[in-house]
């Protein structure tokens, strides 16, 4: 009998790990997958285009149920695991199904953070995390007009854009004075805001929500300063929280998330974890690139060919709003002793900033013209000495001298 691998979480991180594992050792395990959502595995990153009406749900599916069958994987979609018994090495799902494991992979992802203000449970208050949320938003867009998105980060702007594309009047409420402050510096944020305003998006910055107003359904939002705006739909995109309740209940060591080592192993050697639910050193994860790397490392260890180590690396961010190009990677703010190269072409809507740390590129913010982003990312990853390139760096790879 083959050893049993149980995967908790049918999302991108978990299934990518399974795919990597199958490529390395196709017949090593009997694999069982539990997922909370009643679907196959889909690309969560592409929910924004689905909301914007540019893609359908079918377009974003990664692994169909047939795929699981072909690979002999038992899929339990819509049946979340509720308990892990590490003594007996058994997981129990909501349906009561118990499955024994030799190896357990936690890929429980994260939960949207719903700001706990009064009224946050009213109908018409949604997050933007899964297909259900998108369906809720699309339904609201059919019957309602005014949407408020709380949180001017990457996800919030994508949600706001999608809702606007669905015909709603959208106001983005953000707690600081600049959009996407995790990814952009101020000049880029201002360009972004101006471009979105030109499309009709409204912004309330430095705005702290104190209450969601409404009786049967949301009707508006009140702020700390007492002002109020009307809303038929409120989308909360104020960040995510790693989904660690199950792991904590099982007694696995957690800080902000499930703590793993360089092999993605938790404090229980039979239990691995990948994705947004893990904490590696001090970092937690929200972007896909490091998670793909985690999947690669984790799969190697599950396959018994484990010699890889997970090393944190900068990962680039792109905003998926059609017609607006934003690219950000690495340390784009810089610190003491760092230097920067800046290019501005306001009329063309181009802003680029590269942050240098000594002879190396540390970060990049690109707005309006992002095509050299991958090149900068590559330079950052390689830790390349860019001294000789410095004067050309912001203009892209130099063509071979004629």
């Amino acid at each position, binding site marked *: 009998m083959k050893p049993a691998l149980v995967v908790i979480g049918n999302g991108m991180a978990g299934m990518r790990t399974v795919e990597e594992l199958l490529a390395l050792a196709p017949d090593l395990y009997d694999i069982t997958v539990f997922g909370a959502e009643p679907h196959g595995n889909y690309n969560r990153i592409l929910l924004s285009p689905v909301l914007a009406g540019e893609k359908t749900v079918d377009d974003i599916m990664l692994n169909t149920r047939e795929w699981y069958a072909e690979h002999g994987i038992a899929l339990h979609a819509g049946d979340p695991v509720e308990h892990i018994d590490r003594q007996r090495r058994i997981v129990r799902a909501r349906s009561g199904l118990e499955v024994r494991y030799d190896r357990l992979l936690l890929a429980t992802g994260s939960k949207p953070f719903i700001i706990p203000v009064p009224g946050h449970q009213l109908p018409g208050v949604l997050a933007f995390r899964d297909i259900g949320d998108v369906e809720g938003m699309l339904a609201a867009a059919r019957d309602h007009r005014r949407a408020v998105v709380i949180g001017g980060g990457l996800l919030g702007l994508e949600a706001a854009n999608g809702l606007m594309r669905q015909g709603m009047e959208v106001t983005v409420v953000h707690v600081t004075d600049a959009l996407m402050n995790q990814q952009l510096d101020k000049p880029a944020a201002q360009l972004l805001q101006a471009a979105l305003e030109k499309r009709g998006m409204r912004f309330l910055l430095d705005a702290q929500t104190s209450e969601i107003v409404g009786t049967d359904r949301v009707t508006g939002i009140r702020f700390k300063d007492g002002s109020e705006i009307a809303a038929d739909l409120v989308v909360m995109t104020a960040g995510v929280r790693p989904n660690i309740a199950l792991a904590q209940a099982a007694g696995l060591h957690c800080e902000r998330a499930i703590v793993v080592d360089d092999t993605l192993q938790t404090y229980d050697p039979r239990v691995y974890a990948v994705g947004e639910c893990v904490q590696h050193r001090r970092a937690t994860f929200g972007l896909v690139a490091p998670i793909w790397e985690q999947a690669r490392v984790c799969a190697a260890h599950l396959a018994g060919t484990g010699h890889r180590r997970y090393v944190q690396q900068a990962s680039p961010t792109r905003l998926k709003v059609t017609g607006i190009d934003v690219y950000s990677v690495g340390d784009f703010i810089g610190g003491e002793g760092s230097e920067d190269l*800046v*290019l501005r*072409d306001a*009329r*063309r809507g181009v802003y680029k900033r590269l942050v240098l740390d000594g002879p190396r590129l540390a970060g990049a913010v690109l707005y309006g013209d992002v095509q050299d982003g991958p090149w900068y990312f590559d330079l950052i990853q390689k830790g390349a000495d860019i001294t000789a390139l*410095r*004067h050309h760096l912001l*203009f892209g790879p130099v*063509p071979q001298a*004629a």
Partner: protein
Amino acid sequence: MNLSQEHLSVRTTCPYCGVGCGVRATPQGAQQASVAGDTAHPSNFGRLCVKGSALGETLGLEGRLLHPHVREDGVLRQVSWDAALDKVAAQWRAIVAEHGPDAVAFYVSGQLLTEDYYIANKLMKGYVGSANIDTNSRLCMSSAVAGHKRAFGEDIVPVSYDDLELADMIVLVGSNLAWCHPILFQRIAKAKEARPDLKVVVIDPRRTATCELADLHLSIKPGTDVWLFNGLLTYLHGIGAVDPAFIAAHTNGFDAALAAASITPEEVAQACRLKVEDVLAFYEAFAANAKVITGFSMGVNQSSAGTDKVNAIVNCYLVGGRIGKPGAGPFSITGQPNAMGGREVGGLANMLAAHLDLDNAAHRAAVREFWRSPTIAEKPGLKAVDLFQAIEAGTVKAVWIVATNPAVSLPDAEQVRRALAQCELVVVSDVVRDTDTNALAHVLLPALAWGEKDGTVTNSERRISRQRAFLPAPGEARADWRILAQFAQRLGYAGFDYAAVHEIFDEHARLSAWRNTPEQLPRMFDIGTLAGLDRAAYDALEPVRWPLGKTPFADGRYSHPDGRARFVATPPRLPVNQAGGEFPLVLNTGRLRDQWHTMTRTGRAPKLAEHTPEPFVDLHPQDALLCGVREGELARIGSNWGSMVARVRHGGGIARGSVFIPIHWNGQTSSDARVGALVNPVVDPVSGEPEFKHTPVMVDRFPVQWHGFVLSRAALGLEQVAYWTKAQGAGFSRYELAGRNRIGDFGAWARELLEVTDDDADWLEYSDRSAGVYRAVHLVDDRIVQCVFVSPRPDLPERAWLASLFASERLSDQERAGVLAGRPLRQGADAGPTVCSCFGVGRNTICNAIRENDLATSAQVTACVKAGGNCGSCVPEIRQLIAVVRAEAAEAAE
């Protein structure tokens, strides 16, 4: 439809060098014309050099002086002609009344037409009664004049251009013919192509473009030409290459000259810092070829021993009787279009008129009688350098400067500024409004420019050609002769009531024949047969060479009273100021291929400016190392007399111990690049010609915080910038800048420099603040208006591509994306600095063509990328590029 414009075109001559090429100008609307070579003119047969080809670009009224102005309380005010001339006449009269005629002076120019020159000379010498009229030709070929007069008894150039094709050997001494007289160079190149045996020897301290054609280049130590030619005389005598019969029958002074010249080839080699084999190779070839022409130019003339150099050369011809024969003779190649015309009318302080002598009472009487003038100057006037020293000393109190820019061009140019600044009356007649000299004028008078004025010029082979007007007179500008004649009339002088310019030519022609018989006052300059031309005949005058129908000295008769030529003893002497101590290097000055004088005309043609847009100091890399300067950076060059700033260049043609700086830049085109300010005010004792080619200097770092450039459609105010130069581009001005200040906020600094006050201006910028790099581009409606690039080092992008953007009305997205990079971002290569100005072909384009197609000759390059196919001025550079690229390829292949 392609109708011929030929019937509309006017035949005239080029206003640049002394070659005197014929030009056909076809007016194209107001103040514009297209220009082509005149195939019927015997000087150039239709060819034009790059400067001549670009004449059309230099027309137009921008920057022209169009009205008389008088300075009052430091401010120039426009006045009427009457008011201006009345003022000048009143002050002039008062000064002469109080201090005598020698307290006033004219300083004129080889740019003047013969008729203008004639009037100025007549006015001064015959009516004011002083010989204080000198000319910028003093700076150019007065040593040749003096040498000719000493040897031949008259200022005669005994060679014609046709002789170049007849010669078996051509020696070029102190002449960068390829750049300074390109059409003559091309005639020689063509002759050598047809007859590869034609031997060309170049004697020049620098390895110039002219050396491209040379079989032998003698890189002579500056200022030692007399040793070399004395050695030649000694050698010719030693091997018996002499014509004793000719010497006996037609010359005087041989023995003394030979004695003074006595020197062995070994001693020559040592004195001239040459290899003795090279010296002997030159001497042997000179002896072996009967038909040898020795062309010489500023490298000979501009020396404290200039006249002796000329005579040392002439001696070598007299010894073999090789004068007045086809394909042989010493050939003074003049710099200016009408230097020779000025010599004919005697427009120098030590000449009279029509080849008559100031120091000869009979000559003076004859001229006075001809002019029926109230007086005649009796003693030589002040020569150029002395004149401005006398102005500073206060003995000359009024000076009228015509068509020249002495505050730039004279040695010790700071002294000239000082002199003019304290002179009681400075009158300037000029065609442009802003020059370094005009800035010091009390009265500015607008003169007609080339294309507007009408008269005659004489070129280096004594050929008189008509310069004809093809454009209307702009504003209130007047012909120089008319300005002077009206002034003379205001002073109450009769004899200046000319109705038209042909009347002056007629008078000049008659004076040349006045008493010109063997019995009376014989001289070879006689154009009496051209007297009596009416307006129509004068207008129709074809180019004509004097003496008409004769070859000078073919009959063995010279113009000294005894009919013999003179050997002049030329004991050699070193330049007056030797390098050493604080000033260890020797400064040599000269011209560039695509510029003329102080650039008032050529500077307006974008394609000419591209060749060398910035003043430079060329020196040997080892000297640079010793001075602590680096190629591409700025250097301060200082002498005992002044200093300037220029960019360091290693052209490869300079021997150790020497530096070369071009003469063209001035206060209008650069913050601090007037080489005249450095030049020692030392002159030849006979000719008075300054020693421009030999000033001890030092070269030092010019430390700056930043380097930069601006291309701008509008002119900039640059008071705050430590170093700037300005060059004309097509639709923009190009400024090269450097500053000593630390710039804090680059954006604010750049906006202030470019005078961009609108916060919403379409402003692109790039900054690398910690590296001190900043770039900004200002656009209006997608059209580039200005750009500025700054870096702490002179590592700025090439200007060529950015410059090309000024030609377009709208930048494409791709161009816009590249503009801060200073280069096209994707396809489309940078052509590099322009080599071929005619076709605008860049260095990179040419090098690529050579590499990719394995080109070996300039003709192949021309066939491939057109470069060199029009004027041919860049052919030497193309050959060099071929050599360099092929050498690199060969090295890479190893």
